[in-house]
């Protein structure tokens, strides 16, 4: 299975490459725009998408900073943090908007937010999530289930 790991660091790529070398081919994109470029040029079976991108350069964050700042009384610092903290959502929305239908596994704990998760599934399926305490075996199992 060929999986595009979208994260601003190297942690998942390194970890998954080390612990799940068999049956998977892991590729990495460091930001939403790079992910979109790679998906336009190559074929992947699934996408593993981190949620928080607090190390991505400002220019590589998806989302309208000005529009988001308005939700925080015009405070660009809070807005930037919001975009970083929810960047996975923005990447997912951009993928679907670009017509990408690959299954997406989000790394985020939606266990306490069932309504929010239901809205995301309704708009962006096929999509699933795993909380941050998932180990590599959990991730492999969930990806296989998601790809079918």
């Amino acid at each position: 299975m060929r999986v595009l790991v979208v994260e601003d660091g190297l942690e998942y790529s390194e970890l998954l490459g080390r612990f799940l070398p068999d049956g998977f081919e892991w590729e990495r994109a460091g930001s939403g725009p790079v992910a979109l470029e790679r998906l336009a040029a190559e074929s992947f079976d699934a996408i593993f998408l981190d949620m928080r991108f607090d190390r991505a350069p400002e220019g590589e964050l998806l989302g309208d900073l000005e529009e988001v700042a308005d939700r925080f009384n015009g405070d660009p610092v809070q807005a930037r943090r919001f975009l970083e903290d929810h960047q996975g959502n923005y990447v997912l929305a951009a993928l679907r908007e670009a017509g990408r239908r690959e299954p997406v596994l989000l790394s985020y704990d939606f266990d306490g937010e069932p309504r929010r998760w239901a809205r995301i599934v309704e708009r962006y399926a096929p999509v699933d999530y795993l909380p941050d305490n998932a180990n590599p075996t959990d991730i492999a199992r969930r990806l296989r289930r998601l790809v079918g």
Partner: protein
Amino acid sequence: MAVGLLLPAVGWGQAPWDALDPVPRRLYQEGRRLEGEGALEGAALRYRKVVDLEPGWTQALLDLGRVMERMGRLKAAEEVYGRAPYDADAVEALAWLMLRTERPERAARLFRQMRDLRPETSEFLVPEARAVAAFDASGAADILLRYLERPGAMPGAGPVVEAFAEVARRLYREQAMVEATVLLDRLVDAITERNQDAPDEALAAVEALRERFAVEEEARALASAAGVPLIPQQRAELARAREAFAAGAVEQAERMLRVILVANERADEAWAALSDVLEARGDVAGAERAIRTAEELAPSVAAYPARLGDLLAKHYGGRHDAESAEAYGRALLRQGASSVLWYRRGRLLQRAGQPERAIASFRRYLALEPQGPYAERARHVLDGWERERPDPPEVARAPGRPASVPEAAWFAHHVAEVRYRRADGDPDALRGALEELAVARELAPAFARSVNLEAAIRRALGEDDAARALYAHSLTLDPDQPGVLVSLASLERRAGEVASADAHLVHAARLGSADALLHLARQDVEAWRLLAAREHLEAYFASTTSGVSYEEAVTLRAQVDRRVRGLVVGATGTGLLAILLPLGARWRQRSGAPLEALLRASPIAWREVARVASAIRHEVLKHNTTVLPSVADALEVRDPDPARWAAEKLFAPHGAVRRFRSYIDELVHLGQLHGVRLNLRYQDPVLGPLIAAMDRLAGLEAELRTGGGRRLAAELRDISHALNETGYHGLGQLLRRVCLLELGEALIRDVWEAVRQEAALRETAVDLEVTLPGEPIWLRIFRGDLHDILANLLRNAAEASQESGTDRIGVRVALDEDAITGLERVAIRVVDQAPRRISTSMIRGRYIGRGLGLAVDLISRNGGSVHVEDEVGWSKAIVVRLPRVEQGAEEEEG
């Protein structure tokens, strides 16, 4: 510096480290000596040991950070300074480090924090502006302009001048010519006003910049000019059109101008004249379009943007003030000596909620024309701004009169209370108070506060039995009154009824009464129940950080410590040691409080606790300990490589184990700052098992590095479960359950009732309608914050309604959904029918009333926003949006 928290006070002639115990003191002095000799590694080693031995003494942290910086180990220095997030010196050091290492956003946040940590000085505004300039030049300019208004500002100082020049350059690069010019003008004016000498070189650089901006701007205007001059016949026709217009023949004037424009569509003068005509005909949009065309064709003519500014200011009732001020700014770039334009710009910026820029404009006006026609008004406005207006204290509003207590009884009670306070033990005066109180008691016999007051007066008169009976009666009206329980216990003890007294004290202690806890501790000490005394004192310190008995509590704690130490030292016999050592161990386990105690004592600590708990989940568990099951799988098939790899990640200098321990230290330090001694290892149900599991993991380092076997695999699975399952979910629950508040009709009505008790609204006929969605709404916000936000908005709406003679306001709660993140926001719409105009920028500009300014701050602090919007059936809605929390939802992101 936190020395005072942990160590005895330092006297005159003593160095701060004199207060340390001998071992850390020697290490610290060695560290200083080695640092002085340039032996930085050795110095760092000693400072680090001092930090380990005296974690609350931040001087050693600062020294360690400085040495790390000198050694070029900037990451380590950052980590060191970051361990004291509330220490002003450490925050300052970290802020400068961030600025030097080009991490401006963090530097800006830290310098912003310095405003709160060192409110007495404005010196950090300048570096804050330099940091902010990297990502928000306009915001940086505001900060610098604010700096100039502070009493201690030194506009002529070299670093200040450099900061102004740097920010001006950035503004200029971002095409914000007006702001750049205003910034430099204001600096030069301020230097003159304060009669300060600036370094020649720095000032020359500023002058050169001003000159360069002016020249380039003019060149740009010339280069982009596209107007075509009128030929003589067209000019004559333009003169006739103007005459017709002056004579009131507006339509004729328009026809003539349009003829000219057909012949010469690039005639800027004709477009400008047409603008006047269209305005007179009521076509404001057409007038605006015409004058903008004129400006486009002849950008170097100051009159056109000035005219545009007039037009926008005049016709849109404040809605386009910022744009209008911008147009004046463009005019001033070409004609900076036009004092009246500076004044007008100031007025508009004032209305638009941009105080720093407005002040700069007024000051420029006064510099150009100190005796001008608007000078007095400009000075008046500036005087109003210069006055230091402290924020209202952020304390809960005093409870108002209960509905069951008649007004007359309420007032009589307070008269009696005042008489009691003034009596100063005089029996006649006390009896006078009783007479007043009799009125209240008769009108409201079940009002417990009056019963308590009578009890206190009887007690002061020496009528202990009557006082006891009254206190007992008060407890039948309301059994959970800690103060009454303590008073009754005191009287009972005096009467020899020890058991009943103790029961009342324990009850009061359970209700969180610091007095009761101290009473119990005192009794424990008298009876040599040292562990119990210690526990009561820990609970006391968890419940209060001040009070008349605080010093006594501190002394009592020292007394307990001395007695226990005395016991240990005196215990020479093996048998006694055998008793005391387990006792000591048990004491260590039992003393101190869990994290919940900190959150109870200081709810304000919640955000910091949440940040650390979130960091443990995301920086320690995620990507690190989550690999343990996979490592165990590999070990079972005799593959040692993953174990070695994991050991590197876990036990490196900045690895997961050390980071975890530094987070635990951070929580303990946070507790100290809030006066709560935490014992997370033994007392905390979530962090205790996590710490134990992490200790077990640390104990396996050597085995992991060598590969280990099946037993190690089994142990890793066990530890993984404690960390990644129990610990992870425990932290999640901790984050979920604190600070949740349900927004319901009862809460809104309570706030409204409190607002209606205020003098200005006591007689109001304004009625409140409340509409809520049919599902529970949960927010993560302090009750006091939400109360203040709602109270301020309701008060404003009610007062505006009262002034305009309308009698309805409303609160309509709805939900907004973010399509991208799926998150919901709760929209609290406070609606009224008052015709008073108001805009979002006015509200955010915060000059329409201090109360609303406070509300806007609180909204921002809670991640929300405020807007003015239309609402069908009402004149407007002030809409506060706050993040909705799903009940049981996570606070953090992953």
